[in-house]
């Protein structure tokens, strides 16, 4: 054992791995039960996760509004199930999100987040827009500093936040969670956590394929989210689903890789996307007719049918239109009124990279939405919200390991839960984990063997003179995923991909000059593990499942619901990958 690497021992009741939206919500809720709560965060909770620099929208069932429309909770659930997931969804988890997110929005308000507006004509003084469903269901709100406010709230409640620690190993014994091991990303120390319960809230997997613009950090979702959570779960023998659904890139302001964070993938109201002829491909959207709210009850079933048959609410297949010569495409807000453009700028400024983007547009490009159009370009491929890949959890967010819970984008089975999923599942997982921790008298002992192995692994990388720089390995892994798990997949090519991935693993010996580079090496290890899951899952799913998952097998071109209306779970057992099907109900 290398005596050079210091080990920091941390004992806690509830350990939260990943301090994004779900992790912060879990910590805040868990703190209500008189237990010690610790967040281990790879970056800094002030800025980390998909909402690190803001989120401006979150869908919810809002009784005070939707009841007036005659649109029920069941209607929202059916809309989401059919329009967003084409039936391929864990409906029980969806129900949890749909039922509880309104309450979570009210909690956010208590934490200082502005969700009501004096000029609003909508009940509750909210700002509500269309997103995924037949009726407007998404709050627009001032979420640019949400992470700052959630961090403040967590700290006020005594949550211990340890930033700059990347967790790489999940420890469990005898079906019970024991703790986790991590590496300090700027001090190089090893962190050995013992916990009575753990919430996994590490977020989505990114950086799995080469990036479109060639600018390494230019991705739509945070580039430090390298699927560490599902990778460590996989390594620890915990099942992961839906990894085959790595999708092609969408179109948006592709060179900047952002969606303007906006419902229906443009900006509403007033935005259109136009093609070569100037004709709209995505027409202008309008605000809901709020003054007439409640005058007419909706027929949700009919509306759904119309949307499904008209292909509405689906993203246009821009790549196909491009191949037909219908590009270039432009985001066009030039017909918007002053009120609409002001609203749009406010909304963009609250979401993701939006405030920086607006500043850049105005001050570096002299851009004006009233006059100029932005070209709509392809994004990098991603494990999108559609894929809903991640841990297998039951209705109570429990995994098969006692005391281990999942939340937010780290759980699999519910396409596009996004921020609402993080708020609701985080909250529930925090509560469950705290209650579980209270039932446990003592910690399980430290797993000395795993700890020694991690110390040896890290010192090996830090002392390696002849190894490879992380970037070199990352590019090789990304190229394998991109080619062998591409838009068209087939048995022989996927198998070849797996062979090449094995070669890559054999040829890879990382080197790092310092803890920062060590973190990047460990991230690339996550990418390799994710690649292994993607290729194995792609090989096992012997059907195609196109809309909305974009999964096409040339050798099994048809969708086969009889055999494959099931989540495909991968589980590592004694070095082999066990594959099972979890039927979609």
């Amino acid at each position: 054992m290398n005596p050079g690497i210091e080990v920091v021992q941390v004992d806690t009741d509830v350990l939260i791995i990943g301090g994004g939206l779900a992790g912060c919500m879990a910590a805040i809720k868990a703190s209500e039960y008189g237990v010690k709560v610790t967040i281990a965060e790879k970056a800094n909770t002030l800025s980390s996760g998909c909402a690190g620099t803001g989120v401006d929208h979150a869908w919810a069932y809002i009784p005070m509004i939707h009841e007036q429309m005659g649109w029920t909770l069941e209607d929202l659930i059916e809309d989401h199930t059919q329009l967003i997931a084409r039936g391929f969804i864990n409906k029980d988890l969806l129900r949890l999100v749909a039922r509880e997110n309104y309450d979570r929005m009210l909690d956010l308000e208590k934490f200082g987040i502005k969700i009501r507006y004096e000029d609003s004509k909508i009940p509750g003084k909210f700002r509500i827009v269309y997103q995924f469903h037949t009726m407007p269901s998404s709050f627009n709100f001032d979420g640019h500093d949400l992470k700052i406010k959630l961090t403040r709230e967590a700290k006020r409640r005594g949550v211990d936040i340890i930033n700059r620690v990347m967790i790489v190993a999940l420890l469990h014994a005898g079906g019970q969670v024991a703790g986790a091991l991590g590496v300090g990303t700027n001090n190089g120390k090893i962190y050995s956590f013992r916990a009575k319960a753990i919430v996994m809230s590490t977020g989505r997997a990114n950086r799995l394929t080469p990036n479109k613009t060639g600018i390494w950090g230019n991705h739509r979702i945070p580039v430090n989210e390298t699927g560490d959570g599902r990778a460590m779960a996989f390594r620890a023998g915990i099942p992961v689903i839906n990894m085959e659904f790595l999708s092609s890139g969408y179109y948006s302001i592709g060179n900047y890789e952002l969606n303007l964070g906006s419902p229906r993938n443009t900006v509403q109201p007033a935005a259109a996307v136009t093609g070569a002829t100037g004709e709209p491909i995505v027409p202008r959207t309008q605000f809901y007719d709020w003054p007439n709210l409640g005058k007419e009850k909706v027929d949700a079933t009919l509306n759904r049918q119309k949307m499904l048959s008209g292909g509405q609410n689906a993203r246009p297949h821009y790549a196909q239109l491009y191949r037909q010569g219908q590009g270039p495409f432009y985001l066009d807000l030039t017909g918007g009124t002053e009120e609409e453009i002001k609203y749009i700028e406010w909304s963009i400024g609250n979401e993701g990279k939006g405030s920086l983007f607006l500043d850049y547009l105005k001050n570096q490009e002299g851009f004006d939405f009233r006059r100029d159009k932005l070209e709509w370009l392809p994004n990098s491929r991603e494990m999108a919200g559609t894929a809903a890949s991640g841990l297998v959890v039951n209705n109570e967010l429990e995994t098969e390991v006692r005391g281990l819970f999942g939340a937010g984008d780290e759980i699999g089975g519910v396409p596009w839960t996004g921020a609402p999923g993080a708020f609701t599942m985080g909250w529930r997982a925090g509560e469950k984990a705290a209650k579980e921790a209270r039932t446990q008298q003592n910690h399980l002992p430290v797993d000395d063997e795993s700890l020694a192995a991690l110390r040896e692994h890290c010192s090996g990388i830090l002392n390696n003179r002849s190894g490879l720089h992380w970037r070199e390995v990352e590019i090789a892994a990304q190229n394998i995923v991109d080619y062998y798990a591409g838009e068209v997949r087939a048995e022989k090519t996927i198998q070849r991909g797996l062979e090449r991935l094995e070669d890559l693993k054999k040829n890879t010996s990382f080197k790092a000059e310092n803890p920062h580079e060590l973190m990047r090496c460990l991230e690339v290890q996550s990418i390799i593990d994710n690649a292994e899951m993607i290729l194995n899952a792609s090989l096992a799913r012997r059907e195609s499942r196109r809309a909305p998952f974009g999964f096409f097998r040339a050798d099994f071109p048809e969708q086969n619901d009889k055999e494959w209306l099931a989540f495909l779970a991968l589980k590592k057992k004694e070095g082999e990958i066990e594959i099972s099907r979890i039927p979609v109900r």
Partner: protein
Amino acid sequence: MFNPIIFNGDVCTGCNKCVDVCLMEILEANPEKGKPPIVKYPDECAYDGACWMQCPQREQGAIKIVPPLPMRVSILRGEQP
């Protein structure tokens, strides 16, 4: 290769808030107190703007984020209304 973050040494107070919040851990505090941080890993910038957003001297121009050429948006310019 890239130069994503430009600090204005006349305005930046060297508070290192940006170093703290950087998602990608690419910034390092300047050994000289009160001076702007050093962009140690410019090629690992995520362009998420956390540093810029949380800079207390942002309005005074302490920090500027410059997207590299392939990231700059493509604009179809219209006529001045």
